[in-house]
């Protein structure tokens, strides 16, 4: 489970996230939406233990990430927007490296899965500079899932991918959720969010504007049967400063 409670963070006096609370249950996929600069990446980074919140708490599988960062990080995985790789580690070595960080002894099944189900599996000896964007995304996801995390956070995982890669990524995300992983993903591709996510958390200027299932939110605004894009615009149009 992923729990954010009253999370707040400022950058040089400017509020990036303010008093943000929500939860993601095991096996649930929640979309974190909002316009650029709404605080999505900051929220994900705080939940992943990369950034320290100024106030509030972040819990991963019941463990407070501020109180026991290492224990919480053992149960989470974070795939950054445009993940960067080590120049001098091959594809296989990246998987082995991440496995070591999480104490996963048997890497072979993960490598086999990579070879059988992904395009990057055919390039195990390649360096990151030789991979396409889709392959890099596959590698990042494979590395993220190597320790079977209880919580998975994905920042813009589908942006810039071709249709085949998007399909594969969606399958991987759904399979992880089916295994009980709580998944929080941010994306601007609203039709894909509609397909993948049960609930959404909509941010604007660091604050939560709306939370709930897409159907409930649409019903509340008399937008049943309309696209998430229309709901998104409608929710953000209210009280726009």
């Amino acid at each position, binding site marked *: 489970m992923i729990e954010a409670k009253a999370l707040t963070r400022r*950058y040089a006096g400017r509020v990036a996230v303010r008093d943000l609370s929500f939860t993601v249950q095991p096996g649930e996929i929640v979309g974190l939406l909002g316009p650029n600069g709404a605080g999505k990446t900051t929220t994900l*980074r705080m939940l*992943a*233990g*990369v*950034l*320290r919140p100024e106030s509030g708490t972040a819990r991963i599988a019941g463990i407070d990430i501020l109180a026991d*960062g*290492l*224990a919480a*990080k*053992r149960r*989470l*995985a*974070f795939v*950054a927007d445009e*993940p*960067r*790789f*080590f*120049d*001098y*580690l*091959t594809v296989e*070595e990246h998987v*082995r*490296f*991440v496995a*070591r*960080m*999480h104490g996963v002894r048997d890497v072979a099944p993960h490598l086999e899965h990579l070879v059988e189900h992904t395009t990057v599996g055919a390039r195990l000896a390649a*360096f990151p*500079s*030789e991979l396409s964007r889709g392959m890099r995304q596959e590698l*990042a996801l494979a*590395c993220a899932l190597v320790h079977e995390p209880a919580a998975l956070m994905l920042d813009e995982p589908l942006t810039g991918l071709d249709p085949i890669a998007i399909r594969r990524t969606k399958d991987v995300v759904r399979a992880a959720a089916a295994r009980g992983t709580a998944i929080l993903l941010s994306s601007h591709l609203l039709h894909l969010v509609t397909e993948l996510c049960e609930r959404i958390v909509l941010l604007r200027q660091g604050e939560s504007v709306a939370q709930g299932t897409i159907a409930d939110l649409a019903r509340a605004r008399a937008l049943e049967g309309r696209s998430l894009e229309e709901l998104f615009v409608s929710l953000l149009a209210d009280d726009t400063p």
Partner: protein
Amino acid sequence: MSDALAYLVARTVVNAARQMVRRLRQPRYLVTAVAGIGWLAFLGRAGLHPVHAADPAAALPAAALGVLVFVAWGWLFGTGARVLAFSPAEVTWLLPAPLARAGLVNLKLLRVQALVLLNSVLWVLLLPSADLAASLRRMVGIWCFLSILALHRIGAGLTRSRAAGSRWLRLVGAAVAGALVGLALLMASGMVTAPEQAEAWLAAPRMRVLLWPFTIPVRPAITVDAAAWWTALPPALLLLVLHFLWVHRAERAHEDESTLQSLARLDGSPGAAAATLRQGTAPIVRLSPTGSPALAIAWKNAAAVARRRGLAGAVLLWLVLCVVVELLARLDATAAAYIGAFAATWVGFVLLTGPQFIRNDLRHDLPHLPALRALPLRGHTLLAAEVASSAITLTALTAALTLVAYLGLRMSSDVPAWLRQWPALAGVLLALPGFSLMVMVVQNAGAVLFPEWTHLAGRTGSAAALGTNLLGVLMTMLGGAILLLPALVLLPYVPEPSGLAIVATGLMISIVALAECWLLVRWLGGRLERLELWEDLRT
């Protein structure tokens, strides 16, 4: 350091070595590697034949003074904290991983150690020793010395960063900086009024007490006698351990700021350059919406320099220096001449090595080459605009130093009369643009002909990197020598350098350089249009 980080380091070293060996299959990179290894071999041979070495005891106070200046510089202007910023890959994989922060800091310090070890070996090769045991002792001493300096630089940088966010720490920092500046001025006044007695001045009891802490890291590096070395080593090692602990403690306090800097670098946002660029500043010159596209490239590159943090301070410092030297020249011509000679030496040094650190040209833009090539510009026009940017920067820097040199030397009777007249200044100022242009064209030719050259020059720790930097300096010297040939040919025909002849010579150097550079840039432009950069960098 954790098992995983050890794996990361080991695989990185092995794969980087393999890539380097693979790259050497290409002759042009083999040449640079041979040059680097040849240079090391030359230094090694020089080291095996001891020459007259300076008396270590006599050198100790001066070396300690050097350490004091380094320390003061680190506290006043240091940016050592950036050394501990994480790379984008490290942010992606290490920060969300279950790894202790101390392990991550150690990983960064290990990278610093690689550089320190390389430098220790180089210095041992450079400095003569009696036997192998003495060489080993010296290497350990130099390693200890350089490690302390590196850690101090980082610790001071971290503490300064922390001070920036705290009012009372800012006040303490200002007080420390003020005290250090006062001390430096005190020392400078002593050195200036009696330069011939510098040695005695340094050996005075008060100075010995003041410099004593700064002798601790120096002693093992310069002590020749084995017994004295064993006595000098433990305090230096203790200082090293204390510095190590200090850096860890300072990093813990600075963790959030360090993470933010690393994230900014990962995002490639304007914040990525926050450490070096002033934010939200208007350009010095507004770019006209119409006109030559090449001018827009030069304007972009000039903005990169004009917006650097500390530029305004450096200009102010230079103005103050000019006024001080001018006043000093009226009071004490000899003292001013020392500053003038120092500035003149720096003009030569900056002309030779400046192209290695002034890189607001094609070398900086190389990663954006596909976008640049999509612009409606011919290769030679693009290259000319790029080269002009860094040449103007180098000219401005050397011209500023030249003016200080002139102000310092013009009242000195030890300097030939013709060199003290304004035509000498005008001649040099006229020659500088040509010379700067030439050395920058040489460097950018390297970027076009040896793209990996530019890539490697930013790295350290390999013979090929050493070779590329060395060849860069050699090519700069060669380019400069070719440029100066016409002037050297004409010089014997000028028995008594007259004002007009000096000005004409300066102008001629620039005109000849411009013509030579234009021809070279035309040819290189064609190569630039055909450059397959990414294939080259992937090998």
